[in-house]
């Protein structure tokens, strides 16, 4: 009997285990997770869950029965601490070792810690269910919140907290929020909405130091103002959990290196999700992607590879974020130099930004425009040609442009 061991029981690990069964793998599957919880989805942690609109059950990737019925053995609260590729075994923190024939690494990432000044006051992070439970409890008892970092996690948390009536200050060192991921029109919209909801949003400033005094935190900003807060949350990105791979002498470079079929340089080891830096079949370059879509899609690819049916991943990446009652959705991964065309009027709270490169659509960011988003996903995947005028013309549905294009051959679920 063959054994597949999957290290990391998150979004990718859970999907990989299921996809192995769906691809006909009938031997042993052991899913090992460091957290005490069954595989769950992180996106709601900073959205509905923080708000109290979704409970723990709603977060689960699959029902507990789903794993049991599929014969997927799960070990929770168990971190893997080493891989011996020679004996094909994984060492666990509790001293046991697990033998594998094939190994999958789905270890995700860890929030980058931020310590402020000589006081060494550490900001809290929001990455795990336990983080979210603790944060929710604290927010429910009121107080003031300082958020450091105007990325998706910081902004979503700000929205949830503001909706709960918490006084929120958000500082972002860049001149605009979402500077790394989104076009200026989207940043401007997001900034406006947060201010409309009472968030004290400050861009172009950073936190210089934090001191604990009189039962509260006092953050000194780079512009010399001081913010008093009961709680500081930092959302400044994650680092790939690639140490396990690195110590097993697998190639890593800010992420476990894998090819477009999710294989590491060891033919018996695949990796998927936030822990990887992949050669992306569709983008034709090396990227580290942090999204549910990437984690689940790459996990299914990895499962096929382990089952001897390797297929190259060939889908355009996409991502979404909810803040207040606004839906942000993005498709593709535009690069600097791509032309940005605003489609619709941002002041109406519903518009998109289309990215073009040499007359080909490379991406789209939609604000309350799900219609543009789903159409753009197809158009980006089809590498559809489009003029700037077509992109800008709101009266021309993007789905109309789709009709000009044949679907790509590589499509699959």
């Amino acid at each position, binding site marked *: 009997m063959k054994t597949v061991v999957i290290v990391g029981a998150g979004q990718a690990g859970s999907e990989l285990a299921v996809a192995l069964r769906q691809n006909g793998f009938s031997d042993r599957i052991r899913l090992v997770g460091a957290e005490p919880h069954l595989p769950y989805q992180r996106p709601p942690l900073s959205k509905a869950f923080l708000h109290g609109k979704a409970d723990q059950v709603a977060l689960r990737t699959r029902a507990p029965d789903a794993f049991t019925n599929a014969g997927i053995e799960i070990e929770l609260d168990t971190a893997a601490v080493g891989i011996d590729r020679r004996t094909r075994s994984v060492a666990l923190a509790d001293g046991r070792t697990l033998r594998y024939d094939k190994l999958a690494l789905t270890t995700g990432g860890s929030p980058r810690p931020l310590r402020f000044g000589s006081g060494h006051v550490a900001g809290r992070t929001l990455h795990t269910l336990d983080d979210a439970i603790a944060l929710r409890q604290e927010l429910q008892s009121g107080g003031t919140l300082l958020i450091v970092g105007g990325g998706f996690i910081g902004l979503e948390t700000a929205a949830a907290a503001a909706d709960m009536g918490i006084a929120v200050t958000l500082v972002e060192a860049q001149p605009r929020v979402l500077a790394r991921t989104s076009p200026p029109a989207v940043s401007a919209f997001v900034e406006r909405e947060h201010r409309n909801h009472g968030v004290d949003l400050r861009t172009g400033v950073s936190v210089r130091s934090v001191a604990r005094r009189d039962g509260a935190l006092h953050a000194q900003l780079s512009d010399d103002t001081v913010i008093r807060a009961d709680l500081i949350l930092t959302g400044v990105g994650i680092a790939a959990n690639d140490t396990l791979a690195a110590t097993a002498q697998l190639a890593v470079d800010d992420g476990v290196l894998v090819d477009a079929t999710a294989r590491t340089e060891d033919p018996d080891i695949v990796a998927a999700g936030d822990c990887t830096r992949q050669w992306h079949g569709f983008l034709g370059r090396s990227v580290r992607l942090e999204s549910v879509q990437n984690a689940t899609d790459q996990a299914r690819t990895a499962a096929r590879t382990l089952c001897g049916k390797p297929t190259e991943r060939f889908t355009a990446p996409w991502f979404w974020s909810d803040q207040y009652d606004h839906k942000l959705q993005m498709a593709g991964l535009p690069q600097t130099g791509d032309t940005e065309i605003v489609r619709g009027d941002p002041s109406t709270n519903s518009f998109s930004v289309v990215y073009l490169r040499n007359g080909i659509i490379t991406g789209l960011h939609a604000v309350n425009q799900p*219609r543009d988003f789903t159409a753009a996903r197809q158009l980006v995947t089809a590498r559809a040609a489009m003029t700037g005028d077509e992109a800008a013309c709101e009266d021309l549905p993007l789905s109309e442009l789709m009709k000009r294009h044949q679907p790509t051959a590589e499509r699959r679920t």
Partner: protein
Amino acid sequence: MIRFIEADGTPHPVEAAVGQSLKQAALDHLVPGIIGDCGGCASCGTCHAYIDDKHLPLLAPADENEEMILEGIPTPRTANSRLTCQIPVTADMAGMEVHIPDTQF
């Protein structure tokens, strides 16, 4: 009992719990072809399926957001197209057939 049917005709009879979404019922029973990346918040469109004619009238119609998501899905959109994450399972769905498209993105 709800019958999910893959694009190649493979049936997946599923004992779905009343109140859970059709998408979650499919996921919990490892039905291939329903992905549900956004967790059911009607953002991704990867839980699209076709509901049989007999049971379609039982469902509350799609809201505007669902309509807009369905506009751009890669597989043909028909009058039977729905996002399965937006459909709570009810007792009168017994015997319902849900046809899964051959791709979700």
